[in-house]
């Protein structure tokens, strides 16, 4: 590769090198102001135009998959929080569902509903952060504050449910760590109202804003076929006109009981991605409202002794419960030998967990299908032929999340 040879010529210290043909090789990252994330992009520029580029990742690789092989099934849950740290509940839920499928167990209805509600809250925080940060990088500071304040309210809500703002560690294999707090319905409704107000304010400021529109419209374009070939999923794919959403195509939990739309847009550019995200937030709000209305009463965990901790009264009065408590605390659940792939719809697209079990209490292999990995692999393609300034808009709408990308 011509570009790589040129980069190798740069002794590592000089940021810029001008080639004889007038082109400039420029290094962007890994710690760059306009990139909320640590990737490094080597750019070959002709004036302001990107001729060629190479994206280097791995600056946040922290050995998630290897570490998971050394802990038991429930101890993996806190690690999943930190995959896509903008939408932690979805990772929790996806992992728990995969292990439950592997063990062949069901969860009570109330648990499924709570998982849906928390997943949608996470999806909203994900999209709010994406749009807010993107808007800030393009100069719209006010919007950032509006959206982050709305996100703050959602964080407070998840804090009240799970005891953590960003890293909730909420699901367990076969259920949840705890039930919803009292008065959650009212709190959630108040937060949703505030969110809707902030969102509509931001929309008024952004959607028809000349600067914002011009910087997003027709930048970062990719054709539908290429997007499929790059294995795009989520809002990026839906902005290319493909209505693929795991929630509709292979419904999990209780998503088939709600009435919601999958927004798509045919324009394949950054503005389309922005519109899809805004619409998805509204759909998520509607799902949360429907779920809160339907929310049944009952237990929140599978009550079999091999899966979740028995109630304390039984532990002190019943030898079987005591043994189950002991074994679960020291070893955790033990799925049978086998393997499973389970996809859920994450903030950025299809989030899949592929788990191989050898019948012991530790997973043999945990593989995450990170939605932003294929997206980031297309970054070079998306910025090619555009201006340097467009990289910021494209990268922002790509919504790269380091924890998930590099694990």
């Amino acid at each position, binding site marked *: 590769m011509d570009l790589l040879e040129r980069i190798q010529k740069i002794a590592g210290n000089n940021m810029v090198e001008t080639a004889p043909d007038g082109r400039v090789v420029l290094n962007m990252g890994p710690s760059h102001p306009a990139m909320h994330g640590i990737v490094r992009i080597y750019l070959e520029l002709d004036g302001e135009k990107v001729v060629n580029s190479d994206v280097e990742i791995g600056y946040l690789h922290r050995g998630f998959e290897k570490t998971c092989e050394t802990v038991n099934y429930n101890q993996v849950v806190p690690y999943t929080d930190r995959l896509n740290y903008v939408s932690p509940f979805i990772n929790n839920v996806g992992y728990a569902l995969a292990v439950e499928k592997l063990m062949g167990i069901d969860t009570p209805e109330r648990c499924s509903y709570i998982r849906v509600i928390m997943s949608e809250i996470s999806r909203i925080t994900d999209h709010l952060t994406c749009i807010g940060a993107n808007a800030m990088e393009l100069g719209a500071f006010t919007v950032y504050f509006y959206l982050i304040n709305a996100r703050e309210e959602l964080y407070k809500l998840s804090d009240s449910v799970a005891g953590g703002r960003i890293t909730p560690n909420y699901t367990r294999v076969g259920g949840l760590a705890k039930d919803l707090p009292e008065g959650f319905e009212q709190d959630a409704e108040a937060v949703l109202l505030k969110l809707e107000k902030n969102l509509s304010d931001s929309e008024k400021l952004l959607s028809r804003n000349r600067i914002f529109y011009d910087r997003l419209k027709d930048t970062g374009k990719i054709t539908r076929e290429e997007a499929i070939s790059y294995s795009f*999923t989520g809002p990026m794919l839906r902005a290319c006109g493909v209505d693929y959403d795991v929630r509709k195509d292979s419904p999990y939990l209780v998503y088939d009981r709600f009435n919601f739309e999958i927004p798509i847009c045919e324009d394949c550019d950054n503005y389309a991605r922005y519109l899809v995200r805004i619409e998805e937030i509204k759909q998520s709000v509607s799902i949360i409202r429907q779920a809160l209305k339907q929310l049944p009463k009952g237990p929140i965990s599978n009550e079999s002794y091999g899966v979740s901790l028995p109630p304390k009264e039984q532990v002190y009065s019943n030898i079987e419960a005591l043994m189950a408590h002991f074994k679960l605390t020291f070893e955790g659940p033990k799925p049978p030998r086998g393997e499973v*792939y389970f996809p859920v719809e994450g903030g950025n697209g299809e989030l899949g967990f592929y788990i191989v079990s050898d019948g012991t209490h530790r997973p043999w292999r945990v593989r995450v299908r990170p939605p932003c990995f294929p997206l980031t692999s297309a970054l070079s393609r998306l910025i090619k032929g555009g201006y340097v300034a467009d990289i910021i808009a494209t990268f922002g709408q790509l919504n790269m999340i380091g924890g998930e990308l590099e694990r």
Partner: protein
Amino acid sequence: MKEEVLKKRFNVEIRKSGCGQDFAYCRKEDLLEIAGCLKNDLKFAFLIDLTCVDYKGYPGRETMPRFEMVYHFYAHDTRERMTLKVPVEETSPNIDSLTPLWRAADWYEREVYDMYGIHFTGHKDLRRILMYEEFKGHPLRKDYPLKARQPRIPHED
């Protein structure tokens, strides 16, 4: 439907995993042909995921190949999913690259090369992606110790 086509045309074996999902197994020589058939004839347009599993020390697999490549495909037209598994021997850790068929295979294969040291024949730009060039070994292999660090700059205590 897809099972019949694959069974008729190729040497593919379909096994049930522990929890009822179908996993198709094939020889690594047939991989490119099967993948081409999946993409063009059976409309599996998405290469959803591509990864590898190291079975060294897995109980009951002592005589079987050490690595298994795992490919997940998805057909949006029929909403079907499909998983293909391809055993790879430790003595010849190489397999055909899927980059001619899917662009997504580019980075996925680089990651597997980085983490497991499997070479992809036909991949034009096979270098490390998550670790750095100076790194020795392949961290996700079962014989790589969890805490074997290879600092790039000296650490002080």
